[in-house]
């Protein structure tokens, strides 16, 4: 009899952990976001006041606008470069293994390490700016890192450098799973290589585009470390993202309820893209 209950007994601790640490905590955060908590949590309900206030804070708008700019560019460049590299690597390249190893190593690095490296490369004074000036263009300036309007683009540069390899790996796996016979047939019909890619191969990668898009969006919304290390959200708060906004309000400025409200909005953003994705994935598996 005990034997029959064993599977449930084994799952029980994880189930309890999940209910408390994931779902319970989310509800807790939701509740905090409807109070007036500042440095310490208080539990008197005030409704959606914090959410209304949040949208009146300039800094939150900046964070959301930055997320759109950063997320859009990050996804665009990672996808284009990743697809290009995957297609080129798929042309029976002799040193494919070595190249793949090089393209993917940034993924093993922490964003903190990547941020440190790019902070040094992009720093005005001794970085790229000095390099180009020494090469003869003495009027060259490259000070994005310390310019309010441009600092978020520095985050894009570093993030694309780190994540392109991952997209390449996804597309390469997709390319390798395409049925050869369709391509052979098209070749027999006299279609050129470029045409085959545009008309047959790239359209058949649609599911990979879809998953890549979801995962990159998800990475973009959660981005935190890179901004902290590279720009500290600055100058001022010009390169803030929702994640750094949340940290600033909840942990350094003692505005717990506001931090919780911003966290809930981040959660809503992620769920808006993840739930339909998981639903379609699980459904496809079931009816496959």
């Amino acid at each position, binding site marked *: 009899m005990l*034997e029959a209950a*064993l*599977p449930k007994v084994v*799952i029980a601790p*994880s189930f309890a*952990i*999940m209910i408390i640490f*994931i*779902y*319970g*905590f*989310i509800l*807790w955060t939701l509740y*905090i976001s409807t109070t007036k908590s500042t440095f310490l*949590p208080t539990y008197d309900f005030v409704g959606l006041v914090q959410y209304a206030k949040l949208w009146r804070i300039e800094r939150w708008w900046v964070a959301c606008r930055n997320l759109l700019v950063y997320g859009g560019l990050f996804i665009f460049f990672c996808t284009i470069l990743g697809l*290009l590299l995957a297609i080129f690597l798929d*042309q*029976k*390249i002799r040193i494919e293994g070595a*190249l793949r190893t090089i*393209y*993917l*190593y*940034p993924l*093993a*690095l*922490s964003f*903190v*390490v*990547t941020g*440190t*490296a790019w*902070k*040094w*490369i992009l720093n005005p004074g*001794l970085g790229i700016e000095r*390099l180009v000036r020494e090469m003869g263009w003495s009027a060259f300036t490259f000070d994005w890192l310390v310019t309010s309007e441009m600092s978020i683009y520095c985050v894009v540069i570093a993030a694309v*450098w780190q994540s392109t390899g*991952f997209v390449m*790996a*996804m597309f390469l796996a997709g390319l390798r799973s395409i049925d050869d016979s369709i391509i*052979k047939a098209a*070749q027999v019909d006299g279609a050129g*290589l470029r045409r085959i890619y545009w008309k047959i191969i790239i359209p058949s990668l649609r599911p990979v585009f879809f998953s890549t898009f979801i*995962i990159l969006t998800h990475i973009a919304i*959660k981005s935190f*470390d890179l901004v*902290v*290390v590279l720009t500290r959200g600055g100058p001022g708060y010009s390169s803030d993202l929702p*994640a750094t906004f949340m*940290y600033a309000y909840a942990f350094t400025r003692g505005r717990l309820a506001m*931090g*919780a409200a911003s*966290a*809930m909005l981040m*959660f809503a953003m*992620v769920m808006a893209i*993840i739930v339909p994705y*998981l639903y379609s*994935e699980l459904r496809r598996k079931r009816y496959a």
Partner: protein
Amino acid sequence: MPEAIRQSPSEVAHRIFIYGVLLLFAVYFLVPFFVMFITSIKTMDEIRTGTLIALPRQPTLEPWLKAWGYATIGVTNEGIQGFFWNSIRMVIPAVLISTFIGALNGYVLSKWRFKGSDTFFAMLLLGCFIPFQVILLPMARTLGFLGLSESMWGLVLVHTVYGLAFTTLFFRNYYVAVPSELVNAARIDGAGFFRIFWRIMLPISIPIFMVTIIWQTTQIWNDFLFGVCFSTGETQPITVALNNLVNTSSAVKEYNVDMAAAIIAALPTLFVYFVAGKYFVRGLTAGAVKG
């Protein structure tokens, strides 16, 4: 993949173009690390007078010794070494515990399914994706309540708990592909739950253990968010210490020491990547194509 006709001059030019682009990108990916490395063995004088990509004229190990042993980080002057060991002490238990529980969960969710187990799995899957900001505040309170907010064990707990969703997912998807006949036959022979796990499942699980352990090690070693929220001073992991070193506004910025410290922080995961890259990449794409 499509085989093109070889040898014609335009085809040769085509091949050269492809190799050219691929090599250019290899350079693009390598340059930042190369710059980090040469900066880490230059003196500050050379850094101030030279350029990013100038090779060091008098290579020195001094920045490395300082980064490791006596750079000022926070309130201590003992370099990054203590934080390096903090991360080691955090990673080992968190990886082992989360992997082991994940293996058991995956075994149940694939071979001993019960009413509600699929729902549990779907709920857990969602846990892979939540932005952790949404649990930070309650977690901080809970760690304080448990008396773990200043200790390494607090971070071990956090990483174990939020690693479970991924480890379970990895093992469940791996075990689903194992033929159920194998388990059913053993069951008819009278083997029980744990006996089947030990004798049948574990021996074929080495690849998925590799994937999971490498995935978890990389994730936990590289984590910054939990580290910065749930630890202070001497219990901080290396990523937080590195950020403190790089972002202190001290009078003289020692870029060479920063770079040496960054490479030290990167070495363990890079080592894992170069030794077991195959499993690392498999984890990446398995973590990506879920369900």
